[in-house]
């Protein structure tokens, strides 16, 4: 049996990579992927704990997160396409219409 600490370390690493990418990258799609990475890092901790404590709730929560992430991906990609069509760029630093 794999100790739970391994799962948690992996999740932490994934989450940190997600945050780092989110903060560093300028491409909207890359930022989007880094968000997905953070979500899945959290999902990993959920299932790890659910398995460890024999609680079904954690696993159910993962499904919720996946459903929300799917919806978010659909909406997010639609927005990205719309932005790209109007502004011909995916660089977030140039998408600053509301920053006076």
């Amino acid at each position, binding site marked *: 049996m794999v100790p739970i600490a391994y799962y948690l370390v992996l999740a932490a690493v994934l989450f940190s990579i997600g*945050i780092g990418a*989110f*903060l560093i990258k300028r491409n909207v799609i890359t930022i989007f992927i880094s968000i997905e990475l953070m979500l899945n890092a959290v999902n990993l901790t959920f299932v790890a704990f659910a398995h460890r404590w024999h609680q079904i709730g954690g696993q159910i929560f993962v499904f919720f997160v996946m459903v929300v992430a799917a919806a978010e991906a659909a909406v997010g990609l639609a927005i990205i396409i719309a932005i790209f069509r109007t502004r011909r760029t995916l660089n*977030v*630093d140039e998408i*600053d219409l*509301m*920053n*006076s």
Partner: protein
Amino acid sequence: MNSMPANYLWYIPLLPFVGFLINGTVGRRLPRGLVSAVALLFTAVPACLVAWLWSTMLGAGAPEVLHAATRPWIAITGFQVDFALAVDHLTLIMLAVVTGVGFLIHVYSVGYMALEEGYWRFFAYLNLFMFFMLVLVLAENFLLLFVGWEGVGLASYLLIGFYFHKQSAADAGRKAFVVNRIGDFGFLLAMFLLIVHFGSLSFSQVFGTVAAHPEWHGAAFLTAIALLLVLGAAGKSAQIPLYVWLPDAMEGPTPVSALIHAATMVTAGIYMVARTHVIFDQSPAALMVVACIGAATAIFAASIGMVQHDIKRVLAYSTVSQLGYMFLACGVAAYSAAIFHLLTHAFFKALLFLAAGSVIHALSGEQDMRKMGGLRSRTPITFWTMSAGVFAIAGIPPLAGFFSKDGILYQTFASPNPIGKLLWLIGLITAGMTSFYMFRLWFKTFFGELRLEPAHNTGQAHAHESEHDEGQAAHPHGVHESPWIMLGPLAILALLSVAGGWIGIPAALGGSNHFEHFLDPVFASAASTHGVSALNADQVSHGLELALAAISVLAALGGLYAAYVLYYRKPGSATELAMRARPLYETLENKYWVDELYQSFIVLPLLMLTRGVLELIFERGVVNGSGRASAMVTRGFAWFARKQISGNIRSYAGWLAIGAAAVLAVMTFGRSLWVHL
């Protein structure tokens, strides 16, 4: 007729207030006829109530003082003030003057103001004035009297500044208000002293205590109260040194000058002194001050009135001078003589003002007597009625002014006051001056030739700055007699000016002085300690009274003769005389430079204090400075906060991550740190 229930007293002041509410709120949308109907109705009904009240109070078995049911107003431990009304014989006289003359002037105003802007506003204010004036005379305690006192001041302010778009009118209103505040300050202090000492402001309680045990209170203390009251009365009744507002108050419409600044409001100070005579009786010093102020004001204002050119200003200084007479009478404890003169003065001075208004109306707004003349044939009714007023105020027997003024002069002469003879002499000279300036007005206005420029007669140039401008467009055809609605009140007041004095013919002249006996219940105590009847009976001789009356008639005739010579027989001689006595003439014409003196010694230093010290240091330094400092602190914080809001989403996310990490760190390691510490 049934006697009037005491609680109906409340309707007397409240009905004009209802009229004020109606005209003041919806009057703007009502037709003029309805506005005047409302104003007249709500003045006529109280006048009828007053008549009913008279018949009640004169009926058999009527109480000396009629009290209306009261409601508590201010009630704290050990001190209570009620909404209390009471009527005694003094109040009856005041009520008759206020409602009677007030109603006549309302009627007159309907004609006089017919073409003016703000018609509804005028009548609303007039009714408001009636309300407060009636509260003033009906009040049974100092505080309610003070409410009326302040209220008439407010109405006066509003009506002086009725033509508020004219700078001089607005200034005059403000001046009246500010000068009256100085007097009110004295009144307030007097009330505070009364509260501290008596724990009550009710007339009956205060006067009862004072009269029963005068030795309990200390003469100095009562003198202090009396002098503070005198300050208040001097403000309201335009006495030295606070008289300066009244001549300027002539900026108001003429009916206002007649009602407020001649017949009623300015007599409030006299009424107040007479009402509080119990206090004054205990203080010979205060009485002396009152007498001196009165005599000084009488002669001072009369001398100014002799050389003024504006017809209303002559009457204004005349009013100040006559009020000085009333003060003088109060000062020698001849209260009933003061009230008698107040009554007759209300008749003839209201008449004179209304007639002057009719003259001004006839001349399409001209007020300068140098341009008047020859109006006798063109405005005959105005001429005859005004003549009644002029002869009455000049003291020609048997008109009203003769009896009342003579009563004052005689009582001054015969009073035990140490300088009574001197005061009498001043009063006598003033009587001569009064006669002179009134006949001067009379000759200049009604005799000789009309001296208006042709422009006035053709009615093409109405550019002159007079208060009556507003209503003149409809009278383009020169001199004209006033309409009947204005002449009616004139005629009634002329009758009263002729006959009004006959109720007070003294015994020496074959009368029985009903008036004085009528007021006996109110002033009996005063007369017995300070007045003429305090003297031995043999000192009061009818021969002396007759001789004094003859002398004052001679003074009046002398004034008449001087005016006749200077302004009728040799019209140019007045100017010559003025040229020869140039310094004196200029001093008089410039009103002794009192306004200028006040301006440079009181107003300017105050302005310098406020502008130089208070505004610079306090207003700009403390008030503005603290505001600016707090604004700067806020702006500093805002500057710092704004720097954090870059609009860059990734920097927000960075802060979010750092924050989350910090929270995580505290939750993970903080507890163990806490335990170790």
